[in-house]
């Protein structure tokens, strides 16, 4: 969060009121201009909202970066059956902690975003799928929803406009894969959170078999600002293809970890060293994961790039959800990759063979290498099993699981070899 550290170079749009306890109350939020965007939106009508969001170029902040306005335009026009908007607050990508802070400090910002989103795609019922572990933040959001119901912002005939929108807060129960949109839908329906085959896509057959759109918390939080100020205003920041500001979650070996809101395209090196203070005690940088544990690792010499979707892709990695994990020279890369791999083993839903078996196998090979019993052939096996996993499954979880393994074996092969050699030497001397 911008809180507890606020850097003067930040562009605080979504995170402006972090650290202000009054901002989470309805009165406090209204005093900060809250719900003005909703008033405007109910007058604007769906098509105009969608077009404004399209103009803004806002892209999904959950990781894939799909343009939000375009996603909304896939929703069929009112078809007589219920349509749903799902807000994905199942934040569980290692390294990511922006949605929890957005909900904790500005719950009404999210509610307003949900309502405007629902208005834009003619939805009468919004489900906010909150991560189950977020007991405290869920209660804050729950209180805010109750307040908004009392004030007539949610419910029947919102602000006298004739528009009905309900919001239901739904808690998950501990499964990373429910952050995947179709896994989330299954979970919402009371099933095992296993991702679904696509097609059909959610806009056609989604939650409870109805047309459904799923947006990330941060995406929806940006919507009220766009509606208030217009799409062009939002484009004052960022790049042509990645406009706007974004929250970046910085963790690991940096002096000032936290959430920082900067325009997309911000220089990555400057961000790590200037804004976040770089690695502590002047230690050297060893590696950076720019977008959460599911994206390929970058070496220190690769970070002179912009923090936007295109530049990250050009560097062979992904912006993901903007979760910057910094590792300094003291880091045992193999151990950390093994730990990430354990995570994927634990969280694989187990439907598809390559992911179910591949993640567990990779973990065990990595553990063996870490313990000094590895061989060079193991590295080839790791690469090949990753290739056999990635892109061969229903969802992209297997790609995510393979990314840290493949990128680390390619970029930090020496770290692996050192452990392998040490093990061989120990064995030889024994």
């Amino acid at each position, binding site marked *: *969060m911008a809180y*507890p550290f606020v850097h003067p170079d930040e562009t605080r749009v979504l995170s402006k009121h972090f*650290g202000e*306890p009054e901002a989470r*109350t309805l009165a406090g939020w209204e005093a900060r201009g809250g719900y003005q965007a909703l008033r405007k939106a109910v007058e604007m009508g769906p098509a105009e909202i969608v077009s404004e969001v399209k103009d803004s170029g806002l892209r999904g902040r959950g990781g894939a970066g799909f343009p939000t306005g375009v996603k909304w335009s896939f929703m069929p026009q009112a078809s007589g059956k*219920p349509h749903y908007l799902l807000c994905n607050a199942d934040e*569980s*990508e*290692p*390294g990511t902690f922006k949605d*929890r802070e957005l909900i*904790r400090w500005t719950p009404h910002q999210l509610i307003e975003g949900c309502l405007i989103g629902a208005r834009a795609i003619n939805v009468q019922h919004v489900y906010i799928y909150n*991560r*189950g*572990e*977020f*007991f*405290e*933040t*869920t*209660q*804050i*959001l*729950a*209180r805010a*929803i*109750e307040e908004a*119901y009392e004030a007539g912002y949610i419910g029947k005939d919102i602000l006298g406009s004739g528009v009905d929108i*309900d*919001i*239901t*807060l*739904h*808690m*998950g*129960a*501990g*499964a990373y894969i429910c952050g995947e949109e179709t896994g989330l839908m299954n979970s*919402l*329906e*009371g*099933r*095992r*959170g296993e991702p679904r085959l696509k097609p059909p896509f959610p806009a056609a057959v989604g939650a409870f078999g109805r047309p459904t759109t799923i947006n990330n918390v941060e995406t929806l939080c940006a919507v009220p600002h766009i509606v208030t100020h217009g799409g062009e205003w939002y484009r004052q920041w960022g790049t042509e293809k990645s406009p706007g500001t974004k929250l970046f979650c910085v*963790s*690991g*070996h940096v*002096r*000032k*970890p936290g*959430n920082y809101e900067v325009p997309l395209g911000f220089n990555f090196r400057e961000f790590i060293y200037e804004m976040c203070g770089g690695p*502590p005690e002047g230690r050297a940088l060893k590696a950076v994961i720019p977008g959460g544990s599911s994206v390929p690792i970058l070496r220190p010499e690769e970070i002179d790039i912009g923090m936007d979707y295109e530049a990250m892709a050009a560097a062979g990695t992904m912006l993901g959800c903007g*979760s910057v*994990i910094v*590792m300094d020279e003291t*880091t045992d890369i193999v151990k950390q990759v093994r*730990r990430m791999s354990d*995570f994927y083993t634990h*969280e694989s*839903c187990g439907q598809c063979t390559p992911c179910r078996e591949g993640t567990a196998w990779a973990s065990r090979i990595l553990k063996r290498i870490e313990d000094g019993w590895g061989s060079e052939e193991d590295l080839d096996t790791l690469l090949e099993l990753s290739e056999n996993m990635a892109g061969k499954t229903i969802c992209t979880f297997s790609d995510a699981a393979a990314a840290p393994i493949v990128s680390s074996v390619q970029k930090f092969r020496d770290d692996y070899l050192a452990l392998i050699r040490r093990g061989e030497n120990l064995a030889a001397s024994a």
Partner: protein
Amino acid sequence: MPDSKKNPGFAGITGDFKVTEAEIRGTEYVGVRAVDGGHASVSGTLPFQVASRGASDQPLFEGAHGERLEKILSRYEDPQGALLPALHLAHEIRGHLSPEAMDAVAERLGLSPAYVRGVASFYTMYNLQPLGRYLIQVCTNISCNLCGGDEVMRAFLKHTGIEPGEVSEDGLWTVIEVECLAACGFPTAVQINERYFENVRPEDVPAILDRLRKEAPEMGAPAAPTGSES
């Protein structure tokens, strides 16, 4: 370790920050939540879930809890949608999910017990066995791990004197590793029942355990859940 100030998320140490722990947790704002779940839109949320662990053998889904389930059911077009909240509720009442509780949920929602078991076992937050009064979940995923999550885990094990997943003899503690708690900027993140403790260092562990021990009620009697009237 980052040379950062402590996040007041860790109770008691608010350092130089203006905000208090209560303000961070939002306890004053949230206030006392009703057992019947309050407004139907948020009745599926569970303020007392872990706090009332093992508290009750009263019938499931009766009285205020029954009202809460009715409210939850009103929010889904298919009763099956209420399965996760209903399991949470059963978990809240019983402290864990026993076969009997799953069976009751299945019957209430018109599902097969085996199906309910399949769903319940998919999610890590449904504890299928009774646990200690405090479930201590230490994040050892990458961001916390880089900053010493493993040591914090070891410290909790050392000071509670148990192995991961066990219940301590006094029935107070269960310590397990947990996957990313989405508090990566404040390592090490520890979730104890419903509360987050952030920026936990190994040396903070005894103080945390002391504080919890003081808060813990007489063994056997249910505790007043945090921020609630019980």
